[in-house]
């Protein structure tokens, strides 16, 4: 009888340890397409290989907008993933969603501690509220200036001296234009660049500290500064220097094929632009308006959010992955494969030490752009608006109207501000 009991006990133990040896399944929805997808998959495979008790499935669920929509829909029906990547303009929406666990609370829930100081400050600031990090930094970029050194040389300009102020952009632009360059300057993501102009000069974009201390109730971009910026761009367009390049990445093709001399674009485009380009690519900081204070360029890209309502096992697995992403070598792998910033300071140091930046100075520009500005004021920490997606489109529309002469810059911005304020009001109505 005793023997039967012992065998039975052993069997139960064996079965239960088998149950414990079962992998914890977690899912992650993201919007990284193209070559970035390959890097994501490589990192996920490595993680799964080094964490045999966890099985992380990463799924590409479309664009940022589609991923967010699907997340929301699935959350309402209880089928949402454990981890989701949301674009930076969705930050406020996620903050107020009651569907996530702020990432700074996760270690505590698991009885662990974590050093939050390891993350690069400007990135950490962007996704923090009241000094606490709510989502995990993942793919961050900023904007910088790309230029075609060959075209510069052809126009009689020093190919190693890019323009640093908008006045110089205009002067150099005139020379480039006169030397036969069809279009001198264009932007990717014009709405974002417009915001960048504000943050790099320490100008508030919206009230309530850019929407960071409380929900913003009005935008400020139709003030003196914003109007000045747009008037500048409109004048450059009239002079044939600035060509409005369409939303997002459409201007890149023109730059790559040598039809554009200067491009203001995301740092994440660097690898793609350099690959197979037939000319020497130079980079520099975003041009400044003289006489205005120093700020910092603002973060773009996305971050990772932890879904609410997970079992402790799942949460632990998710946290393991988030910690894994913060490893120096993984951060470096992500940066080298995609051009996004590594999220941790140790990675930046390691890259400097190994001489990564002396191989290609252009990668250094991107870093210095974000790391060399001030980081203390609300104006530089990033804009946080609920209906940000729509407001970006409104900004873009205003820029188009001003540049094409349909409205004056002030009219365009006032019209945009009116629409934006109404959206902010609606958002507050639904989210207070």
């Amino acid at each position, binding site marked *: 009888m005793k023997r039967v009991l012992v065998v039975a006990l052993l069997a139960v133990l064996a079965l239960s340890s088998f149950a414990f040896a079962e992998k914890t399944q977690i899912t992650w929805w993201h919007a990284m397409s193209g070559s970035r997808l390959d890097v994501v998959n490589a990192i996920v495979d490595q993680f799964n290989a080094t964490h045999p008790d966890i099985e992380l499935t990463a799924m590409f669920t479309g664009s940022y907008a589609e991923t967010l929509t*699907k997340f929301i*829909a699935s959350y309402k029906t209880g089928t949402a993933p454990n981890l989701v990547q949301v674009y930076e303009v969705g930050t406020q929406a996620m903050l107020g969603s009651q569907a996530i666990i702020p990432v700074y609370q996760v270690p505590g829930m698991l009885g662990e501690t974590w050093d939050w100081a390891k993350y690069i400050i400007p990135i950490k600031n962007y996704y923090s509220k009241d000094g606490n990090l709510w989502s995990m930094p993942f793919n961050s970029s900023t904007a910088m200036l790309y230029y075609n050194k060959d075209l510069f040389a052809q126009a009689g300009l020093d190919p190693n001296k890019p323009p640093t102020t908008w006045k110089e952009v205009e002067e150099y632009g005139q020379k480039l234009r006169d030397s036969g360059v069809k279009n001198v300057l264009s932007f990717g993501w014009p709405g974002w660049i417009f915001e960048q102009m504000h943050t790099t000069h320490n100008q508030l974009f919206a009230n309530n500290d850019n929407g960071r201390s409380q929900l913003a109730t009005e935008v400020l971009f139709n003030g003196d500064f914003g109007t000045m910026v747009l008037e500048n761009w409109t004048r450059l367009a009239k002079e044939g220097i600035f060509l409005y390049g369409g939303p997002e990445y459409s201007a890149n093709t023109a730059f790559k094929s040598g039809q554009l001399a200067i491009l203001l674009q995301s740092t994440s485009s660097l690898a793609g632009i350099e690959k197979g380009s037939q000319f020497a690519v130079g980079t520099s900081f975003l041009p400044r308006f003289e006489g205005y204070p120093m700020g910092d360029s603002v973060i773009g890209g996305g971050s990772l959010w932890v879904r609410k309502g997970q079992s402790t096992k799942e949460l632990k697995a998710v946290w393991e992955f988030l910690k894994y992403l913060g490893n120096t070598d993984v951060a470096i792998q992500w940066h080298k494969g995609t051009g996004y910033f590594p999220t941790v300071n140790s990675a930046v140091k390691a890259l400097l030490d190994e001489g990564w930046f002396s191989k290609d100075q252009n990668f250094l520009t991107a870093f210095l752009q974000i790391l060399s500005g001030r980081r203390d004021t609300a104006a530089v920490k990033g804009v946080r608006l609920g209906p940000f997606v729509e407001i970006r489109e409104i900004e873009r529309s205003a820029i188009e109207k001003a540049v094409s002469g349909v409205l004056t810059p002030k009219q365009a911005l006032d019209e945009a501000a009116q629409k934006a304020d109404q959206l902010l009001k609606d958002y507050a109505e639904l989210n207070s």
Partner: protein
Amino acid sequence: MIHILLILLVAVIAFPVIYALITSTLTFQQAYSYPPRLIPGNQLWTNITQAWERVNFGRLFFNSTVISVVVSFVKIVLALLAAFAYTHFRFRGRSILFPMTMVTQMLPLPVRILPTYHLMASFHWINSYYALMFPFFASTTGILLFRQFFMTVPRDLSDAARVDGTTPMRYFLQILVPISKTNIAALFVIEFIFIWSQYLWPLIVTTTANMRVVQIGLKMLLASEQIAPEWNVIMAGTIIAMLPPLVVLIVFRKSFAEGIAMQSEK
């Protein structure tokens, strides 16, 4: 004279696809040559394999085929049954139900997209074949088509069957359906092409890669490159994506043309 005109038309209309086909045989560099290259290369197979692997076309083709065939089949069956009812029986409510069916022609998906999506979510059908198929099972085109055809079927046929003691369903299966073959084939072509081309609905209702359809695969292929679209690979994917409905159209072209011709007769 007329031949020249027709050949010209054929060429002009076919040009975009021919250009796409040529591009699908080039390398990435060649696809970006300036002036654009019109001489085919030899990379067709490589590009097809690349496109295939990148978005897992195998699975997507399976999904699209299953959905298109099943939905077409179900739609035809349901339409046949409904048309049979409307044309061979008198029953209360016929005068309301039939117009109601017609009203639904004015309810294409976008007009009811959000609630239908929520409905799928509440059935837990999101990201499943059910969600991709069920909303399409109702077909007003089919009901109209078969109704019109059945109305031209001589009364003698059904009278003879009735006198014989044949049940309506046997009459339906053994007489009505076989003579409707042309219309069935025509409807199959129309529905297959319609379902295969669906884009918006699969876009919002599928979340994982293994449930996507060919059209979305195409979108993924295009989304692949932020900066320089790999036209050669994209075109290879496009060419594969267009084949099944094309094959269906060509195989059934006679019945298709005849079915439509029958429709147009008074």
